[in-house]
Each structure stands twice: as structure tokens, then as C-alpha cells.
């Protein structure tokens, strides 16, 4: 970049641009700059507006109902005690735990499958097959979440309900932690697979060859050397995956059962996530029951940021092999 600038400077010294051209040049550059500022400012706009709406329930008296207690909001175990629009006793504490629990479980399912699939595509499968599989993964990634929701409520709920029966447990129509976890695992699987594949493919050939030369079999090399070298990239893939799981709304709200108290750790009982809580019952457009959804939005943002920060910290600790 600097090199171009320098060259540009030299050329500019040699030739004298007429001033009109320079003005046009300046204006266009200014235009580019404005675009950039606009693009960069949206994250600020989002934060400012969500915060502005979301702190209303805590700082105003909500039309005579009284303000929401922040500590209770963050630690309580029941979404709302009392009548909607007449009570200020909101809590999301248990929903935060539910959300993290569900996202983590879905990652636990999706990560091994995703990473092994990625390994298969990148190293093991014949070229034709890996082309086909790559397309399959891309298609899965492109399926809208509402379709996953439709699939979840039509197939996965019935599956989980019957599975619970096999275990001798009575599940409320399959609306449960497990159903939500399965739907989310399906949804983040393509993300994890695609990104892990990139990480695996960018492992340097030298490392691989070294392992093979030392007498390790191809499979041994794939599992012991390639996967280990790609672990930083795989970890990044998982971070993105869990981000998607935390923020997914439409599909989840169709299979979670939207429990109003918790937290739910049992696999076959109803649960709720921050996003499903935001989507439920959003019909009215004023009042505390509306504003509180923005507050849940803030909590969701903070949860995602903290999770990412935490995972990135872990990644730095374990990922000593740098992969682009």
C-alpha cells in the first residue's frame, strides 16, 4: 500500500494534473470515505439504539408500574411474575443459563461431526466426492432458518418425543432441550465444516510429509498431525458456530417450548432461549412488555461478546500453531 502511495507521489511530481481533475478525485475519495464511515457506524447505531430502548424498563417507572430491578432481571428464575403489562418482575437469569447450555451442547454434537466431515472432504475423499460434499455443505448453510424450524417442528419434535418414550421419560410433545440442541446442531454444522475444511487445507504440506516420512500411516498423519496443526482454525470455526447458535431465533422458538421458568438441564423438558423469548408475544408496540425485549437484546449481545472473548482467550492459550 505504502509502495503504491510512493509511486503515486513520484508520478504526481512528474506530471501536473489540472486542478479540476484533482477536485473530482478529491470528491470521489471523500465519497469513499463517507461510505466507510457509514459502514463502520452501524455497529455504533445498533448499540446506541438497542441500549436506549433496552434501558427504559430499568430507568423509567414504566407508566406507573415501577422500574425493573436489574439484579433481579439478571439472576431470577421466572420470566415474569404477575400480569403482563402490569408487573415489573422480569428475569432472564435462567434464560441466560439455558441459552449457554443449549449452545454448548449443540456445539458438542456439531463440532466432532463437522471437523471429521471437513477432514474427510479435505484429505480422504476422492476428488469427485469431496466436490459433491462441499456443495451439500454449502446448500445446508444456505437453507433459511425458517425451513430448519419447519423441519424441526415436523420431524425432530416427533423423533424426540418417541426417543423420550424409549427412555421411559414423558416429554412435552418433544418440545425440549434435546430438540433445540439437535436443530441448532444441524444449523451450525455447515458453518463449522466449511471453516474447518479451510483450516485443514491450509496446514502446510511439509508437516504432513515429515510425518509420513517418519513412517506414520496416512490416517495416523491425518488425525495426529493435520488435525493438531489445524486446531486453531478449527477453534475459530467453533467460535463462529456457537455465535450462530446463540443468536438463532426463528427455528428455536418453534421447538423450544418456551419455558417461562428454569433453568432447564433435563434433556426432555421445555426450555427457552434469549432469542425465543424476544420473539414470543411480540404483538403490542408500546409498554413495558415491548421495551423489555430490547433489554433481552442487550443481554444477548453481551452474552455473545463475553462468550467470544472467553473462547478467544482459550484459543490463545491452546492454539500455538498459527493457521491463517
Amino acid at each position, binding site marked *: 500500500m505504502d509502495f503504491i502511495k510512493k509511486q503515486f507521489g513520484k508520478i504526481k511530481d512528474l506530471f501536473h494534473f489540472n486542478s479540476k481533475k484533482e477536485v473530482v478525485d478529491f470528491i470521489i475519495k471523500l465519497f469513499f470515505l463517507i461510505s466507510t464511515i457509514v459502514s463502520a457506524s452501524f455497529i455504533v447505531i445498533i448499540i446506541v439504539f438497542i441500549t436506549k430502548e433496552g434501558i427504559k424498563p430499568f430507568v423509567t417507572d414504566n407508566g406507573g408500574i415501577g422500574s425493573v430491578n436489574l439484579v433481579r432481571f439478571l439472576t431470577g428464575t*421466572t420470566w415474569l411474575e*404477575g400480569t403482563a403489562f402490569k408487573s415489573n418482575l422480569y428475569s432472564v437469569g435462567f434464560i441466560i443459563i439455558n441459552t449457554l447450555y443449549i449452545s454448548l451442547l449443540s456445539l458438542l454434537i456439531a463440532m466432532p461431526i463437522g471437523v471429521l466431515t471437513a477432514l474427510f472432504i479435505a484429505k480422504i475423499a476422492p476428488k469427485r466426492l469431496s466436490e459433491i460434499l462441499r456443495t451439500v455443505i454449502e446448500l445446508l448453510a444456505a437453507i433459511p432458518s425458517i425451513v430448519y424450524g419447519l423441519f424441526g417442528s415436523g420431524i425432530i*419434535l416427533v423423533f424426540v418425543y*418417541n426417543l423420550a418414550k424409549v427412555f421411559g421419560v414423558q416429554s412435552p*410433545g418433544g418440545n425440549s432441550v434435546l430438540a433445540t440442541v439437535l436443530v441448532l446442531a444441524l444449523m451450525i454444522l455447515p458453518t463449522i465444516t466449511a471453516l474447518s475444511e479451510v483450516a485443514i487445507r491450509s496446514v502446510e504440506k511439509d508437516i504432513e510429509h515429515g510425518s509420513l516420512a517418519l513412517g506414520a500411516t496416512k490416517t495416523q498423519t491425518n488425525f495426529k498431525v493435520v488435525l493438531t496443526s489445524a486446531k486453531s482454525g478449527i477453534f475459530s470455526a467453533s467460535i463462529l458456530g456457537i455465535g450462530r447458535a446463540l443468536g438463532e431465533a426463528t427455528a428455536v422458538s418453534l421447538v423450544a*417450548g418456551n419455558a417461562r421458568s428454569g433453568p432447564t438441564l433435563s434433556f426432555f423438558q421445555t426450555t427457552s432461549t434469549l432469542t425465543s423469548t424476544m420473539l414470543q408475544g411480540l*404483538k*403490542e408496540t408500546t409498554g413495558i412488555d415491548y421495551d423489555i425485549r430490547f433489554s433481552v437484546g442487550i443481554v444477548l449481545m453481551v452474552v455473545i461478546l463475553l462468550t467470544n472473548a472467553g473462547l478467544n482467550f482459550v484459543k490463545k492459550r491452546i492454539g500455538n500453531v498459527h493457521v491463517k
Partner: protein
Amino acid sequence: MKKLVLLFSLFLTGTLVACGGAQEWDSSSNITLYTRDTSSGTRAGFMSGIGFDEAAEDDSLLADGFVIKDNTGILTSMATDEYGIGYISLASLDNTVKGLQFDGVAPTIANVINNTYGLKRPFNYVTRSLDDFANDTERDITLAFIAFLQTTDGADIVTNEGAIPLSSSESWDDIKADYDICLQDNSAVTIKFGGSDSIEKIALALTAAFAPKCGNFVPEHDHTGSSDGFKRTQGSEKDGDNYKHVGFASRPFKDTEVGTEGTQGQLAWDAIVAIVHLNNEVTNVTPEDLKKIYRGDYATWEQLLS
């Protein structure tokens, strides 16, 4: 490649095995409650019908472990969950689930019309105050629409949409001479309808049928919930961006929702049906039963049956 096919079929068989296997209906099982969320008019109607009004907008009064679903979700869940109980509007009832008798009366349109089926709610309308319309055209079309609601033609549409009309004797042809406004071209006039989303389907059918009879005015529907019905015609939001000419409420108007004279009325009844899985042995419930189920006094089906 062979291995792949083998694994594929193994997985599929596994899935199918897990899905199969019918068992006897076991009355000692726990009851799973299904409910709409607190903004639902169906929920308000149901809770008031079983004498549990306080739970209409308060989840914390319901027994633990309830599932919140929308109308579709409750209907499809009841086809799967053998031990669930939920409620839907009579118009949505189909043969994939069992509709329970209420106090010994089967949930049929006939029984609602002859006033023996008790679990029902009124569908009401409210218009702007007659002196609060932007112009006479909008007011007169609104009045003509309200008049149409009371005719046999309006009643036919209500019946066709699965709700129960009030009795009427005059047809639109009999009274249309009183509404000159419908003779002129109204295609540039937009009339805004809002309020209860439970009434949306019926309201859409009514306006779609009435607009061609009244100069092709443009009906605009934006149904956001019963409480917005009054709020946006005569209440706090009547002059806001979301103002409406006609609002609907799928419940009786509250004491705080009394409008000016001649602006409110009923257009239909809607029956609400408690539904269970087809295998369920229960066929009849009383309001007290339902209240006990939703409050958590009955935890298992046995307790209800004994």
C-alpha cells in the same frame, strides 16, 4: 463408497426404529399443558371461560412445565403428545386431534348457535367516534360496513369462516338503499382495520366480500392484538401513525374501553375447544376440571378420571 451406503442405511434404520412403537395410553402419566402466550385473545377467552381470568396474562399462575406454542404448534403437538392438553378456536379443529366436550356438550357449530356450548367468546368491533373521522366518506363507508355486519350476507361469511354469527333477518340488498355512499366509486378511499389477530381471517373475508359492494374501497388490515382495537380507534393511539377506522377485540371490552355511543357491538361468537390426543380416554371436561388442570391441582390424567 460401499461403506458410505451401508452407514447411510444403518442410520436411517436407527431413526425409523426410534420413531415407531405404539403403546397403550397410560392414565398415570403426567398432564402436559399447552398454552398460547399472554398476548393471545384465544387465551384470554379460554381462561375467562374456565373461570381462571387471572391467568389470561399471567404465566406464573399456570402449573409448572407448560409449553407455550402458537395455534399451529398446539394443534400439531396434540397430534404427537398423547398426554398433552391444549385449546384452539373451533374453526381450527380438525380430525387429527380430539375436541373435548365441555360440560357434556360437544363442540359443534350447532351447539354454539343453540347456546348450549359454554366455552365461547364474543368477537366485538369498535369504530372511531362518529365525529372523529377525517371526512364524511370514510365515516359513511365505516357505517355501511357495520351495517353489513348485521345482515344475513355478513352472517353467511362469518359462518363460512367457522365462527358463529348473531341472528339477522335483513339482507344487504334490503338495506343498501340507505347507504348511498356505496353507489359511488370509493377506490381511492382506504379504510383501516385492526385489533385482534384472532379475528383477522374473518375480518379479511368480510372486507374482501364487502369492498366490491361498496365502491371498491381499499381495506387495509393490520391486526396486532385485541387491546389495540380500542386503543387505535378511540384510545391513546387514535391519532397516532397506527390509527384505525375499525378495531376488533376477541373478548368483551374492558371497563376502560367504553367508547362513544353507537360505536361498539358484537359481530360473532367464537367457540374455543379443549383438545387432546386421539388416544386420550377423556371425552368430557367441566370448567372446574380445566381450571384444576391449568392451575396444577391435577398433575396426572388419573386424577381427572377418578
